């Protein structure tokens, strides 16, 4: 299939009828179309898929507004308008003109659902033309809708092709594209054909042949049942594997979070302990101040007391030379120790009484002696208090630091843990174990069925040999036997061909993928296509192959390489000697139409991708914006460009919105002010 032209009529932004030629050759296979954001690049890409299959991709919004807004607005209620896309292409020696058209009658401001009709005309080499009565079927037989994802795509979303989970679908599409699907289907259909043929053998073949055939039928039934079960189990296994991978992934996330969680727990405990230690130290200090705080003020007091005592000793006042109790006794007895009577108010009495005032009290002296003994320890206690306070202050400071440090660490860990779910690890682990168990059981059953199938095949072969030796006199029965033998042998050959093709395709696709990927990326990553057609990316680190997490850019390049490899292989394999016989000159040739080819790639990747793109498909339509397409992209692609165009944006937006695009030294309108919002396809060359 090679595109010749596209014509849009009132299709979304494209007002009126607009044509763009796309015919290209092997030397200049590229059509390059520039368009501003919103100009209609995605619309143009979708115009192709709408024309071919009647659908548009999900990223096209407001799909019920198919007619250009300004056209619909100016249409009088009750009048009708056409919306259509015409695509002309050639395929395997025939020219095709395809038109999908809908006529919409205006009932209100809202556009109703449209019922588009598809028409297809075939023109032969002699110029005679013919209307196709099954236009959609014909289109689908040229390019099945599933396969079209490899050829009509948005570069920014192309990585969906290689996302996990997309393999089953992609694998099926590849099989169609690489001529594997029809082999698989034939293998599935031929047993039914054989059964119908052998029914005749049973009917006319006589007792022996009929009995053998009955046995073969029973065995074949068992074989079919086993194969069905095998397919079911393989499907189940794929689902279980995927679920186990998901669960393991969740567990891994948990496992990653687990050490952080453990550290957080430890930090939390330590923090509680540090806070308690700090509070204890504070309480101890308070108690110390309350009970011994006064000692801080005893510094001068002790010394002064000691000095006073020392001075009293020196003066002989301490201890007192005469006790008051002794003087009181003399006064009470009324006689002095010298014998002089002490009559009250006599001179002697007054003299002794005067001594009473000067005498010291026994109790005071005792107390004094006790106090003077405490003065030295008091000074020591004061020094002790100072040391104890200094110690406590150190402790409080240290604990406060520890609390602050732990609080900071805990909040850091809390932040790390915020995004990971901590619940259900146990449940997940149980689920994983359960899945492992179920997978093991299924694998066991799979192995048993595979052995059973091998045995059944042997038995069927054996019986078939017996059948060919059996005496068959009836001509119809004999013919039925020959036909059955023929069908069986073709089925066996197909099975072998399928295995050969599958392995061959995979190896070649893998090799091609590696080569294209290497030519684009500057990373030393190696893509691999596994036996299950699963795409993986590896890098070699000192001889060890490690999987590479695919970034969006890498995924886009991987997908592009994959598309390039598939496209190239689809062409190649049909040129080789194959069971289907000789193919048409352009068999397996399909155009690639890509929107936003360079997505979010870096400049150097853009250059490499442009270079690869030019060689990637027999025909290539690239839709880009100025920012994506100018510079290196244009430089790389221009030598291969046969058609260059601009999707000119016309806008009612106020202000100086006009913009131009410089191409090959000339300036062309890119955005222009206008009475209505619409886009126009302009040919530059």
């Amino acid at each position, binding site marked *: 299939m090679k595109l010749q032209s596209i014509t849009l009529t009132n299709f979304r932004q494209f007002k009126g009828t607009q044509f763009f030629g796309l015919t290209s050759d092997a030397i200049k296979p590229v059509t390059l179309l520039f368009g501003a954001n919103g100009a209609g690049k995605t619309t143009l890409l979708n115009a192709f898929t709408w024309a071919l299959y009647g659908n548009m991709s999900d990223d096209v919004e407001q799909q019920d507004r198919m007619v250009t807004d300004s056209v619909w607005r100016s249409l009088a209620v009750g009048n009708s308008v056409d919306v259509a896309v015409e695509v002309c292409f050639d395929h395997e020696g025939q020219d095709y003109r395809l038109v999908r058209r809908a006529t919409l009658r205006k009932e209100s401001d809202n556009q109703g659902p449209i019922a588009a009709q598809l028409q297809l005309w075939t023109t032969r080499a002699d110029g005679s033309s013919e209307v196709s009565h099954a236009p959609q*079927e014909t289109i*689908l*037989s040229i390019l*099945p*809708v599933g396969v079209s994802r490899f050829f009509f795509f948005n570069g920014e979303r192309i990585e969906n092709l290689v996302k996990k989970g997309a393999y089953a679908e992609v694998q099926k599409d590849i099989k*169609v594209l690489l*001529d594997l*699907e*029809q*082999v698989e*289907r*034939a293998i599935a*259909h*031929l047993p*039914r*054909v054989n059964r*119908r*043929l052998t029914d005749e053998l049973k009917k006319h073949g006589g007792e022996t042949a009929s009995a053998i055939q009955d046995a073969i039928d029973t065995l074949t039934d068992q074989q079919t049942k086993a194969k069905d079960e095998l397919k079911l189990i393989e499907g189940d296994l794929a689902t279980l594997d995927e679920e186990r991978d998901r669960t393991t992934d969740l567990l891994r996330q948990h496992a990653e979070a687990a050490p952080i969680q453990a550290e957080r727990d430890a930090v939390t405990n330590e923090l509680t302990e540090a806070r308690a230690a700090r509070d204890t130290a504070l309480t101890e200090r308070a108690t110390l101040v309350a009970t011994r705080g006064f000692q801080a003020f005893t510094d001068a007091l002790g010394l002064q007391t000691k000095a006073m005592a020392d001075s009293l000793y020196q003066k002989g006042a301490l201890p007192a030379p005469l006790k008051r109790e002794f003087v009181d006794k003399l006064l009470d007895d009324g006689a002095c120790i010298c014998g002089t009577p002490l009559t009250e108010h006599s001179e002697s009495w007054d003299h002794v009484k005067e001594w009473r005032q000067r005498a010291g009290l026994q109790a005071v002296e005792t107390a004094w002696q006790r106090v003077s003994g405490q003065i030295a320890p008091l000074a020591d206690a004061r020094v002790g208090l100072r040391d104890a306070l200094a110690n406590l202050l150190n402790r409080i400071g240290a604990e406060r630091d520890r609390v602050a440090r732990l609080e900071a660490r805990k909040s850091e860990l809390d932040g790390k843990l915020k995004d990971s779910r901590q619940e259900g690890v146990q449940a997940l682990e149980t689920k994983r174990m359960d899945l492992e168990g179920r997978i093991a059981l299924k694998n066991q059953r799979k192995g048993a069925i595979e052995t059973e199938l091998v045995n059944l095949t042997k038995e069927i072969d054996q019986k078939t040999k017996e059948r060919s030796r059996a005496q068959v006199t009836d001509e119809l029965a004999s*013919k039925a036997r*020959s*036909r059955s033998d*023929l*069908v069986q*042998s*073709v089925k066996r*050959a*197909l*099975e*072998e*061909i399928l*295995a*050969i*093709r599958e*392995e*061959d395709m995979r190896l070649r696709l893998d090799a091609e993928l590696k080569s294209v990927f290497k030519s684009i990326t500057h990373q030393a990553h190696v893509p691999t296509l596994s036996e299950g057609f699963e795409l993986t990316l590896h890098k070699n680190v000192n001889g060890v192959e490690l999987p590479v997490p695919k970034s969006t850019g890498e995924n886009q390049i991987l997908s592009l390489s994959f598309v390039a490899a598939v496209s190239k292989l689809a062409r190649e394999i049909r040129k080789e*000697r*194959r*069971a*289907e*016989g000789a193919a048409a000159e352009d068999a397996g040739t399909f155009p690639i139409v890509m929107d936003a080819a360079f997505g979010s790639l870096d400049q150097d990747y853009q250059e490499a991708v442009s270079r690869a793109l030019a060689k990637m498909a027999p025909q290539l339509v690239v839709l880009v914006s100025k920012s994506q397409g100018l510079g290196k992209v244009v430089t790389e692609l221009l030598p291969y460009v046969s058609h260059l165009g601009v999707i000119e944006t016309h806008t009612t937006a106020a202000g100086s919105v006009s913009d131009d695009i410089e191409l090959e030294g000339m300036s062309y309108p890119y955005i222009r002010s206008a009475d209505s919002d619409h886009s126009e396809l302009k040919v530059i060359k």
Partner: protein
Amino acid sequence: MSQSRTEKQVLEEMSDEQRALLKRVLEIERAKLHITAYDATDDLIAAVKEIIP
């Protein structure tokens, strides 16, 4: 299945009748690839009967 064998070898080992049927079968299946509910039995029997009338 032997990996060293090629499709060409498989084809060469077949008789003309087998090769003819193989080709027809693939043609029929290929033409109906887009119809998942397609029952090929009648078409395939017709093809077999063309080869062994």
